C-alpha cells in the first residue's frame, strides 16, 4: 500500500471521486465527513497527508488544522472555494502546506500530494537543484540558466533559495518577507513584487509568461517542482 491519505470533506461526491483517483494512483484512502471525525481520524489512522476542506458543517477547517498542528507536522493540503484568499493565507500561515481552489483537477491534486510527500520525507535542503534549464547549486552560490551563469543580487538569491527549498509548494508573501527582511511589516510587500520581477527577468525565458516562478494570486509564489 502507498501513503495513507485522509480526506476531510462533507461532500460525499467529492470524497467518492477522490477515493477513486487516489486509489487508482496507488494511495491508501481514509475519509471523514466532519471536523470532529477528521481530527479523530488524524489521530487514529495516522495519515501521511491530510486533504482538508475549509467549509465543514460542524467546525471551521482552520480549527481542524490548528488542532492537528498541535501535535503533528503531517502535510495538510487545503481545499477552498474562490474568493477565500484571506482564509487560504491564514491556513498557510498556521501551517498548511498547500492549497487548491475548487473546482480543481485530480492531476493537480496528485502533483500537490507528491510534493508534500517529498518534502515530508526529505526536509533537509538539497544543495543542488535542477528544474528544466534552471540549475541551482547552493553550496557554491551558483545559478545557471541553460548553462549560462546568472548574476543575482543577495536578496534575489535569497528569494530563489527559499523558493527552491520549498519547490513545488506555495510560499506565502508573509513567509518570504519574514525570511528576507526579518519582519512581518507588510510595507515590504512592494519590494517583494519588484525583486520577484527582477529575478524573473534574469532567469525566465519570457518574463511575461514565467515558467519557473509562478504567482499564486493573493497568496504568494511557487517555484515549479521537477517531477
Amino acid at each position, binding site marked *: 500500500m502507498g501513503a495513507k491519505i485522509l480526506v476531510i470533506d462533507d461532500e460525499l461526491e467529492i470524497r467518492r471521486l477522490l477515493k477513486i483517483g487516489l486509489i487508482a494512483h496507488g494511495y491508501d484512502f481514509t475519509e471523514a465527513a466532519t471536523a470532529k471525525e477528521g481530527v479523530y481520524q488524524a489521530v487514529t489512522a495516522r495519515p501521511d497527508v491530510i486533504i482538508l476542506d475549509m467549509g465543514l458543517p460542524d467546525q471551521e477547517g482552520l480549527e481542524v488544522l490548528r488542532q492537528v498542528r498541535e501535535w503533528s507536522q503531517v502535510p495538510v493540503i487545503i481545499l477552498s472555494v474562490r474568493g477565500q484568499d484571506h482564509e487560504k493565507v491564514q491556513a498557510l500561515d498556521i501551517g498548511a502546506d498547500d492549497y487548491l481552489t475548487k473546482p480543481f483537477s485530480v492531476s493537480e491534486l496528485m502533483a500537490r500530494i507528491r510534493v508534500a510527500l517529498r518534502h515530508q520525507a526529505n526536509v533537509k535542503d538539497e544543495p543542488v537543484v535542477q528544474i528544466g534549464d534552471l540549475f541551482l547549486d547552493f553550496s557554491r552560490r551558483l545559478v545557471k540558466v541553460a548553462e549560462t551563469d546568472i548574476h543575482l543580487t543577495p536578496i534575489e538569491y535569497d528569494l530563489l533559495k527559499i523558493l527552491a527549498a520549498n519547490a513545488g509548494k506555495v510560499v506565502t508573501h508573509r513567509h518570504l518577507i519574514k525570511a528576507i527582511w526579518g519582519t512581518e511589516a507588510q510595507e515590504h510587500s512592494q519590494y517583494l*513584487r519588484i525583486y520577484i520581477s527582477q529575478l524573473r527577468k534574469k532567469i525566465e525565458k*519570457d518574463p511575461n*509568461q514565467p515558467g519557473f516562478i*509562478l*504567482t499564486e494570486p*493573493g497568496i504568494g509564489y511557487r517555484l515549479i517542482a521537477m517531477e
Partner: protein
Amino acid sequence: MGRSNYWRKIGRAIHASLRIDYTTDQDSRLIIFSLFLTAAVTLIGKLYSDYLGLTNIGMLYLLPVIFAASRLGVRQSLFIALVSVLCWDVLFMPPILNLAVSDTRHLITFLVFMMVAYTTGNMSDLLRCRAQEATQREKQTRVLYELARGLSAAADLDMLVSQVVKQTAETLDAEAALFMPGHNGELRVVAANKTLTDLASSPNDLLAAQWTFSHSQPSGLGTDTFTGARGYHVPVKTEEKTMAVLAVKPSNNLLEAEQINLLQALAGLSALAIARLELAEEAHDVRTLEASERLQAALFNSISHDLKTPLTSIMSAVSSLVDDEAIYDEEQKATLLNGIKLGAERMNRFVNNLLDMARLESGYMKLNPDWSDIQDIIGVTLRENQEILKGHKVKVEIPDALPLIKVDYALIEQVLTNLLHNAVKYSPRHSEIIVSAAEVDGLLKVSVTDQGEGITPGDEEFIFDKFYRLQSPGNVSGTGLGLSICRGIIEAHGGTIWAAGQSERGSRFNFTLPVAGDVF
C-alpha cells in the same frame, strides 16, 4: 369732511333700513343726492306752481326717481318714488298738507310712479348684478389660471399639494389644508399653510374630511354635515374617483356662495393635476416594469443557455462513455473526455462571472488591494487561460520598469480574463491578440487588441451595459455580463475602461488604473 361723513352716515342708515347689507360710499352719496333732487323739485314746484301746473310738477318728481332707479337699485328707487309721491301728494295736491287725494285719477299717476321706479330699478339691479358677476368671473378666472400655471409646473406630488394649499389660502384669505389617503389608506394632512394648526389637528375636521372623502360631498363649516368642524371640506375629485379633500377655514368663518364656487373650481383643477401626475407615474412604473421583465426574461434565457450548453456537452460525452464505452477507441474516448473538461471549465467561468456580478450589484464586492505587478497579473491570466487562447497568437508588449499598482489582484485578473475571452470570441482563429501595458500621464494603461470583427461605431459605450449583447443578434454565446463586470471592477479601482474600434480592423479595449506613487 365732517359734513360729508354725516351725510354718508345718513345714506347708510337709509340703506340699512331698506335692508340692503352691502353699501358703498358712492351708494350713500347717491341716495342723499336723490333726496336733494326731490327737495329741489319740491322747491321749484312751490315757486312756480301756478305756471307749471299739478301734472307737470308730478312729471318733475319722476326725475329723482329715474335717477335713483338708474344709478341705484330697485329698493332705493321705490324709496325715492315713495318720498316723491308723498311730497307731491301732501304739498301740492288739494287738500294741501293732507294725505287724502281728492281726485282718484291721481292714484293712477302714483301707480305709474311706482311702476317706473320698480321697472327701471330692477333693470339697473340686473345690470349691476351682471357687471358684478363679470368682475367676479374675471377674478375667478385669474385665480384659476394662476393655479393651473402653478400646478402644471409641479413636477411631483409634494410640490403639487403645497401649490394647491398655497393658492387656495391666498385666494380665499383662509387657512387651507389638503387631506390625502396614505399608504395604509387612512386620510392624513399632506399639506397645510403655516397657520393651519387647528384644521390639521382637530379630530372633527378629520372626521369631516373622511366623510367628504367617502361621500364625495362637501361637509363641515356652513353645511349640514359635521357642523362642528372648523373648516369647510370639499372633495378633490375627478369623474372616476375622489383623490383628496381640500379644507379651508376662512378668517371670518364665513364662506360666500361665490367663494364656494371658486373653491370647487380649485378642487376640480387640483384633482385633474393630481390625476395627471398619478397617470404619469403609473405610466413610468409600467415602462420600468416592462423593461425589467424583458431583462429578466432575457437573463433567464441567456443563463439557461449558457449553463445548458456546456452541460449538454458534458452529459452527452459522459453518457457515451458510460453506456457505449466498448464502441469507442482510445482517441475518441480522449476527445469525449476533453469535451467534458472544456464544458466544466466553461461552466466554472460562467458561474464565477455570475457571482462577481451578484457581488458588484449587491455592493458586497470588497476590494482587497495589494501591491501588484501588472506584468505578473498578465502572466498569470495568460497561464490560467492557455486552453482558450491556444487557437490564437498572443503577443505581450510590456516595457521595462513599469510602476507597481495597488489593486485587487484577482479582480484585475478577472477583467483581463474577460477581455481575453471577448477577443477570442470575436476574432478568427490563428489571428493575433496583443496585450500591452504602458504608463501614460501618471496612469497605467492596459490594452487588449484583437483582429476580429470590431465594434459597430456608436456602440462603444453601450457594450459595457449589462446584457447589452442580449439585444444584438448573433450566435456567439455568453450573457454579455463580462464587460459590465469589467467596468464595475475597474471603476471600483478608480480607473476607467473604454473600447475603441481599430482603424484597420478588430477592436481594442483599454483600461487605466491609478499608479500608487513611486516605490523607490
